[in-house]
């Protein structure tokens, strides 16, 4: 239309910019500016009752690379990684089933997946305490059926931490994968079968690659928040294994060292950016 040969591309007109403006302003005010402030804070010092002095020092970063903090960071990343893998293994079959179901069933199942969001995640996490504790639901049932003679120690363990995380983030894995599965072209799968692929091969070599955008999106949505979701790991894990979220929170409160907390936060941000970058590269391949 414009007379250019090659790809037909419309340059965004004024209307497009106007529509984009609210999002741009929101991003600027609530994402870019605060992140900038956080990074700036990481080069400052806190003195006295809590006043910040911008001395442009690298001390906070030097400190952040000490063993304690790196260990805490690596444990948090490990929990997040475990959570992501478990969510993938549990969530993919569910998403696949929903995606291949008829429209009525699909609606009901999707609603069921989303219903937990109607309650605060904190309350749902507390509910797990009543299930897993020594005198809780699970142990009472197991003891009364004589399956175990002593109550199992489930609460305040790494198992409980990861369980809490998986429970909270599973829908975030199911929904993106579902939307990928829904867009699967049945013809592709048929073609694979026609060409002699058994069900396993069709699944691993055709279906999974085709749904990989959904898997990648789900993985990001689960991995990134669960690194620092200390509300859950603290409640379920008992706090004996410090996580990076808890540690950063401490710096802003009891530790009375906001700039150090900001430095740790900036490092965390770097990890997120790395994760995003790796996911993008994986999708390009």
């Amino acid at each position, binding site marked *: 239309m414009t007379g250019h040969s090659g790809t037909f591309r419309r340059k965004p007109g004024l209307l497009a910019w106007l529509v984009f403006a609210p999002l741009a302003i929101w991003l600027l005010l609530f994402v870019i500016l605060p992140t900038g402030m956080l990074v700036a804070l990481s080069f400052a010092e*806190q*003195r*006295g*009752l*809590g*006043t910040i002095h911008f001395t442009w020092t690298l001390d906070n970063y030097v400190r952040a690379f000490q*063993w*304690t903090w790196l*260990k*805490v960071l690596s*444990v948090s990343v490990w929990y997040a990684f475990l959570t992501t893998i478990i969510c993938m293994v549990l969530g993919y079959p569910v998403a696949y089933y929903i995606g291949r179901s008829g429209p009525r069933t699909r609606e*009901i199942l999707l*609603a069921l997946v989303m*219903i937990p969001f*109607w*309650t605060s995640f904190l*309350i*749902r996490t*507390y*509910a797990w*305490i*009543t299930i897993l*504790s*020594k*005198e*809780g639901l699970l142990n009472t049932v197991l003891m009364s059926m004589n399956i175990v003679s002593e*109550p199992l*120690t489930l*609460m*305040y363990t790494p198992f409980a931490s990861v369980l809490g995380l998986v429970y909270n983030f599973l829908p975030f894995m199911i929904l993106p994968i579902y939307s990928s599965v829904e867009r699967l072209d049945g013809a592709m799968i048929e073609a694979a079968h026609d060409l002699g692929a058994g069900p396993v091969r069709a699944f691993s070599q055709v279906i999974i690659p085709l749904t990989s955008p959904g898997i990648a999106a789900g993985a990001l949505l689960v991995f990134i928040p669960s690194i620092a979701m200390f509300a859950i790991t603290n409640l379920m894990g*008992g*706090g*004996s*294994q*410090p996580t990076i979220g808890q*540690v950063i929170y*401490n*710096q*802003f*409160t*009891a*530790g*009375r*060292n*906001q700039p*150090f907390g900001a430095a740790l936060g900036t490092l965390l941000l770097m990890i997120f950016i790395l994760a995003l970058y790796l996911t993008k590269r994986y999708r390009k391949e």
Partner: protein
Amino acid sequence: MKMKATLIAAAATTLMLVGCGKPAVTTEETPTSESTASPDAAAPETSEPKRLSVFSWSEYIPQSVIDDFATETGIKVSVENYASNEEMLAKLMAGGGAYDIIQPSEYVVEALVKEDALHPIDHAAIPNLKYIGPDFLNMAFDPGNKFSVPFMAGTVGIIVNTDLVKDEIRGYTDVFQEKFKGRIVVLDDAREIVSWAFETLDIPINEFTPENLEKAKPLLQKWLPLVRVYDSDSPKTSLINGDVALGVVWGGEGAKLLEENEKFKWVIPAEGSHLFVDSLAIPKTAKHPKNAELFMNYILRPEVSKRISDEFPYTNPNLAARKLLTPEQLSNPASFPSEEEMKSLQLFKDIGDQASQVDELVTTIKAQ
């Protein structure tokens, strides 16, 4: 939709499950007009706009007490909560909200007074101050009570589930034994934990020098791996659930457990403990200081103070309020330590930026 009804039922059940547990001992009466014994029955008015912004600890001032103040004076009260002094300080220094009432602990009052960040209070507007016992007035952190009135005091002590623990527990050393590994709950407060180590090693509890921290490190390395739960918000949860057998917790939490079940026993550690005194104070940036003084006077009323004690059984510094408590409440050792114990308790002082080192030490040991 049938599904919606089922969901609402499920959600309601879950909420009930979570919220259950013995309900707090609340008083049934809701005094609308105070007893005629109090000369301040009709709350005086101030010339300020009828608003008050309260910034207080969570689980410390019952909502009914605040509502009644609002009804009586016609002042609209907005309440924000915090779970630690440092959180309150951080928000105060950041200058976000202009709070009229804050509820700092003793060492924070000390720090705020040093930085001249508090509004001096007019004792003429707070005649009920006379009800506070002499032990709690004129304390080192605010001589002459120029800036603060005591709200509640308390200690940190040891709570034992005698059904699960048959040994006699006398102090921290008895708590942190190998045989209790994985069955202990402690407060999630680095400064508290290190101060217990200091008390055991006879180091002054306010001197967090690098040398003292090094001295305490081996003991902490022995203690911390034995802990199962770190919880400052509600340590009684894990004790009630049976997930832990004993712990070192706030006096108020201990008192509630003692009220709940006779199997719990309270012990003030032989090595020593500290007394915390939480006060009401007015920041310099407050917009309604006169209303704040009204609020302070209201809280100091014996009947009101009694209601606070009913719900949160800490050590009540208001002697007239103590007369209104039941014998059970007064004999609760976690709420009201004995004379002897009171004498042995120390006070925290402000430690400034040493807090960062303390936090790092505890985090390092936990991370191992």
